[in-house]
């Protein structure tokens, strides 16, 4: 089982690439996972430093975001995502039961 951590410039770029790479396929019911793809998790804009808020909910400091728009993919097949595949040392997402 492969778990890929992917970074794209935008969500549109990501969806286009995931279709081209065969992660998503079109069926009678619309867009669905290809055979062997177990999960596509849209993480989006990841926060590296949380914003802070006072007791009334007013923002004191704004959150800081990582670059890009992020996805995690779990699949059986080997897929070459090129430079969109990234190594992560401080993951913000995982799959239940997997370290």
């Amino acid at each position, binding site marked *: *089982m492969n778990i890929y951590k992917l970074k794209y410039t935008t969500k549109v770029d990501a969806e286009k690439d995931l279709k081209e790479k065969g992660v998503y396929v079109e*069926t*009678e*019911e619309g867009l*669905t996972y290809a*055979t062997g793809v*177990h*999960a596509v*998790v*849209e*993480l*989006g*804009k*990841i*926060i590296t430093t*949380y*914003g*802070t*808020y006072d*007791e009334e*909910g*007013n*923002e004191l400091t*704004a*959150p800081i*975001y990582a670059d890009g728009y*992020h996805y*995690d993919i*779990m699949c059986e097949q080997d897929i070459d995502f090129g430079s969109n595949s990234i190594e992560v040392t*401080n*993951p*913000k*997402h*995982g*799959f*239940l*039961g*997997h*370290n």
Partner: protein
Amino acid sequence: MADTSLIIGNGNWAVKEDSLLGYNIIQGKYVPIEMNVSRNTTGTRVKNSAGLIEISPKNLFSQSQTFDNAGWTPYPAGALTVIPNVLATSAPNGTFTADKLVANAVAGDHWLLQTPTGSSINMQVTFSVFAKAAEYSNIQLYNNNGGGGVANFNLSAGSYTLLSGVTADIIPYPNGWYRCYITYIPILTNFNAQIRLANSPGNTTFTGDGTSGVFVWGAQLEVSPTPTDYFPTTDKFDIPRVDYSTGTASLLVEPQRTNLIPNGLGYNPVAGVLYDLTITDSPAIGINSARITKNVAAGGGDIYAQQINSNAALLGSTTYTLSRYFKYDGHTITTSMQYNNNAPWGGTGWNQEIIIAPTGVTLGVYNPFSQCTSTIKNAGNGWYRVNVTILTGAAPVGSPQDLMILKSSLSTGQGFLTALPQLEVGSNATSYIPTFAPLTPSAGVTRVADVITKTGISSLIGQTEGTLYFEVQGFSDGNLANQFITLNDGTVANQIGFNYGTNGFINGYFRVNANTLTISSTVLKTVNSKIILKYNSSNLYTLFINGSLIGTGTAASSFSSPLTTFKTSQGDNSAPYNGNIKSIVLYKTALSNPQCINLTTTP
């Protein structure tokens, strides 16, 4: 009544390693029926009518009784040999599946270890193994999470010595076997659990002889303060979940969901709020709850307990459900689940009042900022799960958090218990997905969808006539339509089953040689329903639900290829079903209408 060809469930669910208990009409008895579950993550389930949640499968070890598998590692390399399936003794279950761990003729340590996968950090776990003396009569169980649980076990005397950890014990079994266990709390990632051979009590460093050792069987690592019934594993993920959240046993089939809350026990420090995270009274086995109390005297303004809900910006124009469990803690109070600031929710300001009283937990009255819809469910043992559904605005920005109000009128020490928070995309709360911060970082966690399949059962399916019986209950998941359970030929060209329409109603669904025939009902999917789909050799199809004949239809032809497969989806895996399945029964004959009405009528 005609004979059934297959019964799954029928109030007698049982899950084995990769199997459900089914009834084989040819053998005339209940037998394990292998079901392929393509869920490559663990999950959770309500384990029994007591309402407690446990991780499923509970055994965090893979290859739990095949110690010669590569999932286990002799350490140091070459110091220990595993002899599988010895004939010198039977295992505790009477089979010849016990292994022998032999210390090789080298000086030093002789260990067998496994690094378990799973989110078990900061949770109390129990590591157990069945062991029996052979030439040696001592073992040590050890975990390497920074000096955590360690205990020595004497397999002749039936005694143990706990060196560190929470507790240990040795439980006698027939025929010289003992179940040895230690309980501890891992605090590091990638900890491993070790079975260490000893040639005398506590002496794990010695020179073996290549033949002497101990017998072992059935290792289990579980989130629990004590060992529970042993559950064997090979690949530990794809296990069907039998769930009691509806009060009776049913098969739980859920979609992919991510609990976005990065640490279920992580709360923001706030002046005047005290978080006690050591509370073991919880809806889930081995997962603490939080006691949240006011830490200043009555008076002044309201203050708020706070928790970060996601470590990513929320998606715009998307429906989320935030769920928490609450329990009375000695004081009747009104608290809340509410937004921290509407910017992280895209401009949606939402607020759900929650009243916690000795008689139970209820939803509060309308609040002018309540841009949410909420439900509540009694989870048993005094716990209630509150589910708040929120539609975000177009462009959320910022760190989403939720607040739980502690009103100014409360005195020091007054508050409530809360547990198992979960924020997920979707209009319903699904089964709990544990999230814990190891030390750093913290992360959201995904449970992958359950899709359950049984192939190669054409002999159990009537090909020209038959009757299918389902007892099911769908989730309150908005308008997620086109969810199917079908018998099919592996494609969408030939299939029989039911689906949910866009209006949330149950439909009979027949697709014969690529021509679709739908029989619509007005029975909501969220109603526990007994459904029969009947077809005969004249290609007449009939739908019954809950004691009523709903409708009929006639197909132009018979199936162009044999029905071979059961799936909780269409034949091509699309449009998966989400909900509970209480029973499935197949008949190879078309029952009479009165029989169908009788079968679908609840006594």
